């Protein structure tokens, strides 16, 4: 990491927690875990509360679909860490062929129409937020997405347009495939909230 203090200054209970993670997984905790526990009140706690609610809370989108959206936004933002991390969760829930098809071209990927409409919104909102108009929302409604469903899509986009930038600025180490798969198992089992 470019800011070494993020990886060594934690409260006592978090030092113990991260040590336990290291023992249980047999490898050092991911950089993002170290960062989220650094001055956790500033960013880690409120951020993961938001993320957990959006990615694991009640929604008309399945957990796998929301993780696929996270992967898609991260890929558009060229964030290798987040695309790999959430791609592994999407792979585990929807199958790697779906993830690969969406990243190749969401327009031709085997998706239900409502999910395809969500990707249309995500693409513009991520790359050209000033161009997002009511038409993309109405197109989603036409495919059966509710207003709350659109709100969830918008929040997934906002979350990953935030954390992608932090991940790249701080320069998180990129795990290998096995590391991503191990982290995906934990994210599916435990979710995101750190408090």
């Amino acid at each position, binding site marked *: 990491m*470019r*800011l*070494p*203090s*993020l990886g060594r200054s934690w409260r006592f209970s978090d030092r113990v927690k991260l040590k336990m993670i290291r023992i249980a997984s047999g490898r050092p905790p991911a950089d993002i875990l170290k960062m989220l526990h*650094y*001055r956790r*009140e*500033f*960013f880690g*706690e*409120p*951020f993961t*509360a*938001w993320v957990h*609610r*959006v990615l694991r*809370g009640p929604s008309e989108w399945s957990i796998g679909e929301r993780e696929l959206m996270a992967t898609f936004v991260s890929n558009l*933002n*060229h*964030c*290798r860490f987040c695309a790999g991390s959430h791609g592994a969760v999407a792979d585990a829930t929807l199958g790697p062929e779906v993830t690969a098809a969406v990243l190749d071209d969401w327009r031709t990927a085997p998706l239900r129409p409502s999910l395809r409409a969500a990707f249309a*919104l995500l693409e513009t*909102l*991520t790359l050209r*937020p*000033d161009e*997002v*108009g*009511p038409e*993309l*929302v*109405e197109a989603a*409604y036409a495919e059966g997405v509710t*207003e709350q469903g*659109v*709100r*969830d*899509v*918008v*929040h997934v*986009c*906002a*979350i990953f*347009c*935030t*954390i*992608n*930038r*932090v991940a*790249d*600025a*701080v*320069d998180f180490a990129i795990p290998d495939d096995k590391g991503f798969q191990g982290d995906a198992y934990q994210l599916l089992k435990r979710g995101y909230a750190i408090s």
Partner: protein
Amino acid sequence: MPLVPDDDDTVPESLFAVLRQAVLDGPGSTPSRVRHVVAHAKLDEVSHELRGYVETMREHAWRSTDEQVRELLAVGWSEDQVYELTVAVALGAGQRRLDAGLAAITRAQQRSGEPAPAVRAVPVQSAAAPAATQAEVTRHAAA
């Protein structure tokens, strides 16, 4: 501007507001006003060495480099301050998408003729006056 239903502090909009409060107005090594300025990418109000970093973070963070962070540390920003500013810029980019998406939902409601649900706006605190903030940014960078 995010819209928050009146009576539920567990909806995503409310959780985002809590995060925003912590990052931009909570305790930190960098003055709150400076965090607001970088979050809103008011590039003409930040010092030169910080301007390039904010611009990179906002538009193409994957191109950020070790050198950019080293330069900030070399001119006097602490690691803690660089971290706070990094998170503030990133959150500003996220909020830009949130605001644009929620505004599109509101416009779709208006076009359909449906009444908008009862909401309240999350107050957005205004940033400092440009001159004062510029001075503050420069002062902290040089401290």
